[in-house]
């Protein structure tokens, strides 16, 4: 082995105490490694790696703005990445299958020593772009709950002078009224500007049904459907006296089983 120039590293974690901890442990396990920078979030880390070109980046997985996985994706192939995490069971199982290393917080000195040993052996090679692993990781962590749903779960509407976030599960129905759409809940009504036509695309079709050009009803709020003397279907709601007409186009929704 020929001598290498002193290796360099950056540490990214949103908590300063945690950055300190990693730095302290690294100093003990690998005195020659010099920490050239510390970042408080993913985008700072990316900028730092690009400008300082360190050999290694220690990235915390959960960071504000851009997280550790996204930062690693942005830096693919440019730096050897070691992920740091307190408790991400999905991530841990994924790391164990992958080529890249990871550290658990609080960092155990022996484990850090092992990581340093692996890194020393790998420094001569080009950094692994880890495409597959990263794709898998971001998918797994996304499934953990931070991913936004495909449909609206909250309606932002003005009630009096305040803007409220109304959970869709509280809503009985939406109804077009002049320029506005009325949002009716059990306890109050609110107005939004979004027309029914746009709204229907953003609502979960399993949760809401359009029953008329101007009416969308929450399926679970339907108590029963009757027919009036002209044979039109009328929807009765749980917790409201209001009755909603079903237009012919949507009659098939309430066909008998």
């Amino acid at each position: 082995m020929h001598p290498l120039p002193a290796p360099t590293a950056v540490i990214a974690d949103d908590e300063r105490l945690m950055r300190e901890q990693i730095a302290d442990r690294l100093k003990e396990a690998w005195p020659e490694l010099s920490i050239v920078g510390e970042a408080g979030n993913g985008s700072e880390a990316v900028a730092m790696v690009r400008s300082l070109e360190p050999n290694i980046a220690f990235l915390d997985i959960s960071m504000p703005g851009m997280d550790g996985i996204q930062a690693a994706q942005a830096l693919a192939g440019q730096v050897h990445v070691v992920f740091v995490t307190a408790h991400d069971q999905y991530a841990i199982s994924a790391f164990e299958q992958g080529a890249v290393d990871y550290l658990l917080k609080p960092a155990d000195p022996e484990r850090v020593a092992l990581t340093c040993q692996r890194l020393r052996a790998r420094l001569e090679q080009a950094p692994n772009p880890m495409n597959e692993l990263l794709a898998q990781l971001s998918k797994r962590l996304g499934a953990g709950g931070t991913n936004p749903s495909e449909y609206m779960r909250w309606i932002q509407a003005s009630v009096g002078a305040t803007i409220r976030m109304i959970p869709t599960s509280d809503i009985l129905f939406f109804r077009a009224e002049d320029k506005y759409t009325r949002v009716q809940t059990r306890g109050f009504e609110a107005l939004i500007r979004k027309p029914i036509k746009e709204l229907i695309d953003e609502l979960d079709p399993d949760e809401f049904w359009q029953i008329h050009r101007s009416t969308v009803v929450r399926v679970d709020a339907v108590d029963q459907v009757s027919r009036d003397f002209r044979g039109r279907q009328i929807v009765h709601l749980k917790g409201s006296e209001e009755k909603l007409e079903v237009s012919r186009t949507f009659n098939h929704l309430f066909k008998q089983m």
Partner: protein
Amino acid sequence: MINQATEGNTLNTDPRSPGIDNAGGQSGPATQRRASKGSLREIGDAIVAVWWRFFDWLAVVSWKKLALVSLLGLILAGILKHPVPFLMVIIASIIIKVVAGGKRRAELTADEATKRAETEQLERTVLEARMEALQAQIEPHFLFNTLASIDQLIQTDPPRASKMQQSLIRYLRTAMPQMRDGKRPTLGQQVDLCSAFLEIMSVRMEGRLQPVVTIPEGLKSAVFPSMMLQTLVENAIKHGLEPKPEGGRLEIGAEIVDGLLAVHVLDNGIGFMPKAEAGVGLANVRERLKALYKGRAELIISVPPAGGTCATIKVPYEIAPAASPD
């Protein structure tokens, strides 16, 4: 009263068991004797069962229907030319209905009401058990990160490590399913619990978290359900402030509005996403408010003019009794 009603029920179903006895007893004089004794008892039981059923029917049937049935019976008895015994049966029925009908009817209603109450009680217990299981969910991420921070402070700043550890103990003690000490939780206790959590998070997030707690002294003795304020504070940090690189302010306040105690948690974080999945936390708060106060309490999420999120819980204003059990 209720005992008697259930007794009637048992008698209705009882005759089945001697029947099973009979099926096996075909040979031998002893078995035959036992069989005949069994069938005698069976007949007796059947008569008692029929009597109770008749009694129940008599108690709840309307006078009009009873008159109609009597008339039909009388005509039938006339055809069979034995009207006198039947007339006696009718008169006896009328007397029984007058004397015991009301009481029996009340018993049956009471029985039904008890059954319904028992089901409701059971449902409530199940709900409460589920709530407690949810309450005990302490974020592993929070716990491990906090322990890692304490580990680091032990080496660099032992007094601060000790303080943080004490905050963690205080937090864990109250975040565990609440011990039933017979007292109802107060707003003061809930705010203390949140302060422990905020102390921990302030050490970890440093300047990125600026907590402001302003609860009027007089409102601290008000009754406030457990673990709800905690959920709002955790949400504000996790979804509002932590994802914001520069962090921000978190404010807890309380006031009386129209006879309701309104407690709010306000942050100037990244704000609420309309497509964010409604978390277990908020759904849990809603469900518990419904279970505890029927329609008289609510959780309101609003968007303050300056951005961020404001979550408000409104419950009926009630001062906690000094030490009397709930």
